């Protein structure tokens, strides 16, 4: 290739220079666009954080300012004294922890038998599961079922209906299939039954997959609010997101009158209060996010492991 370039003035060389200039433009555009999009993704959250700490008079004077000149924790103090915040936290915590635990346990014990290609009935069960991904009964039949099971107004109505995700089950099954048979065979020779194999071999080897699924399910439970709207009418059992929704989207007129203003020394105005409640709700996610980011990149490739 080098021999083909005679001199720097040859048309060949000019063409290569132009090509690399085109490359540079292309590269710059890439960096700029991706960078802008990344900024766009986190910018609104900075606004939310800054507004939650701004005293309301400051906000009224200049709503566009990003960094507050004065810090005020009045909103947070008010939230601290708001009983529904605490019950909401308790509900969401319970649902997230217990729900995720059930998700993971069911995922592991179901994926293992389904990963055995020669198990009789396996194809039938797989077909049954796949079908549910594309067709379901709808909102009303599901509500009727939950009601018939007397799960209305309990946390279980939020945990049981989504206990196994067919999609995740398939991913987990693929992952478990990739574990070499030789490990299982040597365990069988040593006298282990399938339960022991599951506990001592499959689960430890599936740690990256399990970590990824824990993340997905936990975040899903933390953020979910649709099922709660359907099944939970008791305000004391409301998870955090429902409270956020009423306060922030519905302008929480109800709540402001009911409990938030009670006992507040310094009244944080509705807007700052709303921003504060948003910050409080997404704070756990932000805290957990850096630690688990390394897992889900790997995790998303689980289902497509080829070699």
């Amino acid at each position, binding site marked *: 290739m080098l021999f083909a370039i005679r001199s720097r003035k040859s048309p060949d060389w000019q063409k290569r220079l132009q090509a690399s200039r085109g490359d540079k433009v292309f590269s710059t555009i890439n960096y700029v666009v991706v960078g802008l*999009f990344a900024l766009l993704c986190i910018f609104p959250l900075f606004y939310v954080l800054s507004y939650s700490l701004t005293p309301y008079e400051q906000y009224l004077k200049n709503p566009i300012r990003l960094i507050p000149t004065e810090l005020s924790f009045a909103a947070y103090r008010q939230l601290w004294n708001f009983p529904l915040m605490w019950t909401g936290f308790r509900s969401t915590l319970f649902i997230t922890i217990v729900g995720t635990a059930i998700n993971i346990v069911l995922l592991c014990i179901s994926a293992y038998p389904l990963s055995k290609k020669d198990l009789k009935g396996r194809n039938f069960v797989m077909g049954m599961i796949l079908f549910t991904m594309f067709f379901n009964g709808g909102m009303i039949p599901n509500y009727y079922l939950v009601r018939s099971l007397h799960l209305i107004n309990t946390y279980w109505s939020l945990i049981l209906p989504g206990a196994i995700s067919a999609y995740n089950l398939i991913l987990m099954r693929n992952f478990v299939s990739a574990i070499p048979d030789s490990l299982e065979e040597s365990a069988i020779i040593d006298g282990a039954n399938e339960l022991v194999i599951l506990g001592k071999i499959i689960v430890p080897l599936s740690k990256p997959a399990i970590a990824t699924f824990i993340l997905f399910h936990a975040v899903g439970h933390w953020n979910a*609010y649709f099922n709660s709207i359907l099944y939970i009418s008791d305000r004391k059992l409301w998870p955090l997101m429902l409270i956020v929704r009423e306060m922030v989207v519905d302008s929480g007129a109800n709540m402001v009158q009911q409990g938030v203003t009670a006992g507040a020394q310094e009244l944080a105005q509705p807007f700052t209060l709303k921003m504060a409640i948003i910050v409080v709700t997404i704070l756990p996610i932000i805290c957990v996010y850096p630690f688990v980011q390394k897992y889900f990149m790997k995790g998303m490739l689980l289902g497509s492991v080829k070699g």
Partner: protein
Amino acid sequence: MREPRSFLAVQRTKCQRFLRYVLRHKYLYLLLVPCVVYFIVFHYVPMYGVLISFKDFNFKKGILGSEWVGFENFEYMFGLSDFYRVFWNSLYLNILRLLIAFPIPVILALMINEINNRYFKRITQTAIYFPYFISWAVIGGILVNFLSPTWGVVNEMIKSLGFESIFFLGEAKYFRGVAVASSIWKEAGWGTIIYLAAITGIGPELYEAATVDGASRLQRLVHITLPCIKTTVVLTFILRVGSIMSNGFEQIFTLQNTMNLSVSEVFETYTYRVGMLGGRFSFATTVGLFTSVISMIFLLTANFLSKKLGEEGIW
């Protein structure tokens, strides 16, 4: 010479052999029991609940006790102008999503792939995945407040530039834009993961050969990367088409208000409003059934078409 066995004898030994097989692998079947029970109870039993749409449902009488009305509910539904409005809203929103929000993760993934600086790549990826982890209740809350016509940030900026404030969530033409834009904000970054994964599967020899032949980066992108991820894109597209009737209750519900209802009412929110809040269970079930069936038809058609065009289908 062996005596031919009787039919019953053969069946009996088949049964015995099956039972012996199950007993030998009893732990595997035991482990599978919760899963099967779960799917039957929470997925197949509600399918039976679809019968509600053929009956005049009454909670006290239950499903079996309620009167059978055949296709009356369906006839009623197809005669309702509301129904067509909701149908159009759902479809239009999804078509917008397919046209605008679907290509963006692909393009983003291609661009991210071309970035050479490791730190920049990692930082931007961390940033763009983040909105996916935020609940629609929160995003909706942020949007409702930032886009408020009286005290929202966005309108303050517009006013300071000399224009009139726009009631984004109150006017029909802006609502769809807000819905699609917020979808992009939340899901585009996350959507790049699957395409990036496909891109990393492309063999470097292809790129090397193209470089030797003098291809610029743009040419390499168009002629190598794009064709190689075509399968992934098509598969994702088919799946996306399969959910063409669904717009996600959580997103639409938080952005809805009485003023934009004429464009924002989609099937999920309509079913909720009419069924759960309005108490008309039979009708709501009918709408739900219609949605599921249409989605299946779209999915099967998309799958069939893609196979006809030479691509892989889902099955």
